[in-house]
Structures are given as C-alpha cells and as structure tokens.
C-alpha cells in the first residue's frame, strides 16, 4: 500500500522570500512533484499550533514552512516563529506524530536549489513515514485549542486585578 501512497505536501511560503523563490523554480523550468501545494503568507508567525495540527487532520501529510529566515522583513517575527515551531515539534514528538512531517527553513527569492532540496527531503521522509495519522492529529488539535482557551480568563478579571494592585 505504501508504494501507492502519494503524500500531500503543504508549503507555507512567505510573500517576500519563499513564494517568489518557488516562482523562480518554475521560471527556471525546474520540476518537482505536483503534490506540493504552495500557500502565500505574509509571515507564518500568524499560525497557532492548532492550525498545523488541523492541516494534518485534514489530510496534509507534511508541512514545509518556507520562511525568510534572517531576511524577515517583520521585526522579531522569525524568532517568534522559530520558537512556536520548536514548541509544536516537541509536542508532536511527545504525542507520537512524526516530527519529520514539519520543517522550518529559509528560502530566498532565488534559492532554487534549496527549494528543490527541501521538497525532495520532505518527500522522501513522507514516503518512508506513510500517511499521517489524521485521527491523532485531530485529537491533538482539539487539545491545542482547549489549552489555548484554558489559559483564558474571564473578561472582568483584568480590570479587577489592576484595581487590586
């Protein structure tokens, strides 16, 4: 069954770097598998943990976060993103979702080789791992949402706290 499996790879490509980088690959008429879907994003820093887990739940087998790295035009966004992905990866690791299914990398506007290399790497990994466990991912996603909301306080708490201090 594994040999018939075609993984779905989602690339979250930054508008300033990786998306034009992916364009450059096409312009150079370099080929990569058609099961790679590229979404243009301002910065992947906007995605909460549950978004990634939700992607797996929907049947995306691997996610490549193709960011700007140190060329990130937004102040501090790349470091925040890296920290968030770090957290997500350890959570996936602890819960039995293969961490090779996610990868954070920097792709520049002309990084054709780097782009192809990352796709090949992710592709190899996914063929080896097989389809994502969607049920597990979905379960983790709901846990993530619950956790996020558990930290939330009642609306009135903030002013009351300030008054008390």
């Amino acid at each position, binding site marked *: 069954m594994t040999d018939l499996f075609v993984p779905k790879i989602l690339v979250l490509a930054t508008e300033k770097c990786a998306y034009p980088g992916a364009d450059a690959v*096409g*312009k150079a008429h370099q080929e990569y598998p058609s099961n790679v879907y590229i979404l243009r994003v301002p910065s992947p*820093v906007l995605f*909460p943990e549950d978004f990634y887990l939700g992607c797996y739940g929907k*049947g995306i087998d691997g996610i490549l976060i193709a960011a700007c790295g*140190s*060329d990130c035009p*937004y102040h501090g966004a790349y470091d925040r993103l890296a920290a968030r992905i770090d957290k997500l990866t350890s959570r996936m690791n602890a819960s039995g979702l293969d961490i090779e299914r996610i990868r954070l990398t920097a792709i520049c506007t002309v990084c054709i080789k780097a782009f192809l290399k990352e796709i090949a790497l992710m592709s190899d990994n996914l063929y080896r791992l097989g389809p994502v466990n969607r049920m597990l991912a979905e379960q983790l996603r709901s846990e993530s949402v619950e956790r996020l909301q558990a930290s939330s306080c009642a609306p009135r708490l903030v002013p009351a706290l300030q008054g008390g201090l």
Partner: protein
Amino acid sequence: MRNNDRFGERSHIDDELSGSDVERDEEEQVWLPTGQSADPAQSLRIGVYICRCGGNISDVVDVERVADTVRLIPGVTTAKVHTFVCSDPGQHMISNDILEENLDRVVVASCTPFLHEQTFRGAVARSGMNPYLYEHVNIREQASWAHKHDPEGATAKAIRMIAGAVGKLRYAQPLEQIKLPNHRRALVIGGGIAGMKAATDLAARGIKVLLVETEQKLGGRLNYLGRVYPSESAAAELVTELAQRVQQDPNIEVLLGWKITAVSGFIGNFKVMAEPVDASTSSLPGVHATVGAIIMATGFRPYVPRDGEFLYRSEPCVVTLPEFVQLMRNVSPDAKTLAYKQQKIRNIGFLHCVGSRQLDGVHEPGPDGRLNTYCSRTCCTAILQQALAVRKRFPQIGVFDFHQDIRTYGRGQENYYTDASRAGVVFFRYNGEEPPTVQVTPSSRAKNGALSVVVKDALTWGRELEVDVDMVVLGTGMMPGQIEDLIEQMKLATGDDGFLQEVHPKLRPVEVAVNGVLLAGTAQGPMNISETLAAAGAAAVKAAAMFAREDVELNPYVAEVDQSLCCGEAECVTQCAYEGALKMVEMEVDGELVQRAQVNAGLCVGCGACVAVCPHRAIDLNGWRLDQFEAMVEGIAADIPGRSCESELVTIH
C-alpha cells in the same frame, strides 16, 4: 481499485472527524469541502477564470477539465477559459460577467500574483466589485512550468488550488484601503551626497524637507575623497555644488551637528525628535517635528582593519585606502617623490578585499561576530584609480596589485583596469582562501623596516612570490553605518550583512517593510556615487509620489480585533513588536469599563504575530484570516469529484 481501500478508510475518518461538517453528494457530483453546508456563502456567485497563457499553461494543464471540475464547487456559478485573461478582451469578459451574472467574487488562475494580481483587482474594481473579493491562483510558475512532465498531476493541482481559493473567498470580507492624513514634509537623515540629492529633488517638487546631519558639515564621506571615478571630477566640487543648492533652497531646513533621537508614528504621520549631537557644547533644546516620510541616507562607515591585520597599526607604512587617498590629496603639486612618515616610497602594494568577501575559517569575525561576506563593490575601481594616479604622477614608483578578482563593473570603469595594465601596474591574483600576507623584511635602505607581500599567485600557476614594497595600501571596503538606535526605534530590517534591507531587491528596491521609510544610498549596501545618486533620486520620487495624495492609502492587510470576542487578556499585545500598533484601551461594554485590545491600522505592519496567541480568535489579519487559510487547506486536501485515486485523474461524465 487497490487504492480505494485506503481512501475508503480516509472518507470514513473524514466523517468521524468532522461529523456532519462533511457533506458529499456523490450522485450529483456536488463537492462540498467541510463546514460550508450552513454557510451563507453558499449563496455566493463566484466566477472562476482560467488562463491558457497562450499555451504556457494549457500545454500542460488541461484547462477545460479544470473549468468543468471547478464548476461543481458550490458557489461557483461561472468557470471560463481564456487564452489571455490579462488581455483587454479577457478583462472585459470578467467585467461583463460581474455585471450580467451578478458575480460577487472572482478567481483568476493564471501566472504568479506578482505579475497580475493588481491588474485583476483593478479590473473587478472597475466593475464595482470590492477588489479584495478577488483571489489569484498561480498555475503557471507553480504548476504548468514546474510539472511539465506530469500533466495529470498539474491539472489536479490546479483544481485543488482553485478549490482552495474559492474556499478562501467564502470567508473574504470587503476591505477598504486605509486612509490617513498626509503630512507633506520629509525628514532626510544624513547630509552626505545621498541625503543632499534626495533633499534637493524633493524640494524641487515643492516639498518641505528637514535635513539632519551629525557632522558640522554637509558632504559626508565625499569630504574625504579626492577625485571620483569615472568622471575624474573633484569630490569637493561635487559637494560644494550640492551643498550650496541645499543651503539656498527655502524648502530645505538643515540641522548640522544634530541627530535624530526618537522616531514614532507611521507613514504620513511620523513624530521625530532631533537633538544636538554634543549636548555639552549646545544649550539648544531638542526639536520635535512631524513628517510624512523618512529617507534613510545614513551612509556607511569604512572598514577599519584590526590591529595587526596585514600589520596595520604595527607598521607605519601599512595604510588603508582612505588614508592613502588623503596622502595623495596632500601631495604638493611640485613634489618629485612620494614620502610617508619619513619613508621614501619606491614601491607600493595594493591589497584588494580587505574587510570584504571574508570567508568562514579564513578571516576573523568582527566584534559582533559577523564576517563581511559581501563585496564592497567600489574598492576595485578606487584602488586602480589610485594605482593609475601614482603611476602617472610618480612614474618611478612601482605599483603592485594583489587581487582575487577585479570587479571594475559599470560604464567607464573597465578602462581603469586596461589603463592601469598599460601604465605598468603589475597584477597578482590570489585565491580567496589563501590571501596574501604582509611581512617585515630587514633592509638597509628602509627607515621603518621594509615590507614585503607574499602571495600564491594564480597567474603564475600558484607560484609563491615575495614582492618587496615600501608601502602597503589596504583596499578596505564598506561597513554598515552605526545606526543601531534608529534601526531599533524604527523597526527596520537589516540583511545578513547588517545593511538596511529593502522590501524586494528588484520590484521595490528603495522601500522598506515600514511604510513611508525609504532608502537612499549606502545605508542599504555598498554603492558607488553614481548608484547612490540613482537610489537617492528614486527615494525622493517615491516620497514625492506619496505626497501627491491628500491622504495616505495603505493596504488593508492589518490586524483587526473583533470586539465581540475580545475579553481583554492582552496576550496579543505581548507579541506585538511595533510600538503603538496594538494596545489595550479602556472602553465601556454593557455599562462596565473594561480593557480591550485595539489595533492602530497606521502602525500595524500585518505580520500576524498577535493572531496565533488569541484564545478566542478575536484578533485576525484582514485579507489573510486564519479561517481563510483553513478553508484553503480544506480545498487542497479535499477529494476531487470523479477522481481516480491512483493517478489523480479527473473524469467528468
């Protein structure tokens, strides 16, 4: 059929995962990505236009099949193919359909959005549709060109990407460009040639300019140059001419010996504060000003070699290129010989790439741990200009040039290389991984101890050569200016090299991610004077174009708080790196005073760092909402109707 089991299993999981969210009506071949059954978006009328791009797309992607398939997506009322959607007839077709078929959302699947997204936004806007209800799908650069040998796969991918875009449009809201008042006055930071050029260009268009320079004199680094290539005119004349124009222009206010100490605000509305550089000698109070645009003409600082690098500072006759330029400038017109620190100069060695094109493992990083891996671009021509000047002025002096490459690019510059060769400059070429070394050799004739340059010369098949010289000139390059405070305050991005970074090196070369801030000259990276002037001119034009409007119009891609969902936890505020862009404000809700997050659209850059942390999804990025991304992923991941699982073949009956 072998594969159907797995997909059967998947469908089962689908149902289990999303319960009633997934609806599939196999008989009618209606295809509902999850969650949209009760969505009012079902009443949408979406037009999808697929471009053949004259064969660029349709030679690989079966565009007719794409149209036939996406027509099955609920909400898609029209799906058409055109040879060039971007052409007048193509755009006309869209306009007509919007009016005649009452379309309220439009998708075009064609080339990269960087080419025609604006074109089609304009086209739909002209037909009365909100331009932000338009979605662009890239099936050329990212499908037909990238999957040429996989037409089936490329076709399936095009369908999925369009399904994603349709999903995104379901959650799209009409957006309006953000309008803010525009203060018609520019701040130019730096009074070098870039700053002076930008200031005079702006003033000539009737725009008030505040020019702030830390030195007591206009001209910046040009004050330290002799003649400038390729015109060979005197730098001093260039400075005098421009400085006069600056000082006589009633539109330009110049502050010499002042610096910018605080910057806040946003495009059209920056609040800046200037103070004297030396507060001890000046009793002048700081000045506040409101400006609409800021031009960064802060320049560079020359690389200064470390103590002992090529014997710099340990041997008096090892000097940097700027020091040598000073020496040549000060030579008296009737001098027959060249002397430096009591040393008569008979032979000079010029070393290229000192402090530039540094390699890991070969060079020592600077105090900030950074290697200058870049080429400083101006030193090659500047060195050859000096080498040639020496040979012309003092024909008895031997000149030796040690380079890894000669980069005398650009009009008129290659002549310096040919002229220097003809004038008897001797060239040696080293491999970047084995740079030459400078040594002291005992010699009777030298007062300070003679020097020699040892080089593995690639031009003589790697032979190690030792060249005796009396003076070594280090071709030092450019370093980023020391403007850390401004970078921090204005949240400017810098590249790996430490220079200020533009939004896009080709499409938006003088703009930065912070709207209203423009780059002029070497603040952005090594440039020669001609390039600096071109950049400064471009920055001035960009600023002038911005000032042509009464209001500043910004893309609406900023964060927005849904006040009905916010409960004032301020998680988002902790994530925001842009001061004032997102803050807690007090407001009355149901008769009670509460704290709520609020976005200042003028200060928000739209990075989305705040979005991820909100427990209630109360804050989202307009145009790039989280639910839109989720809908796109659903569109991509959903099964294509009638598809054979093995080949992703699409068959419509």
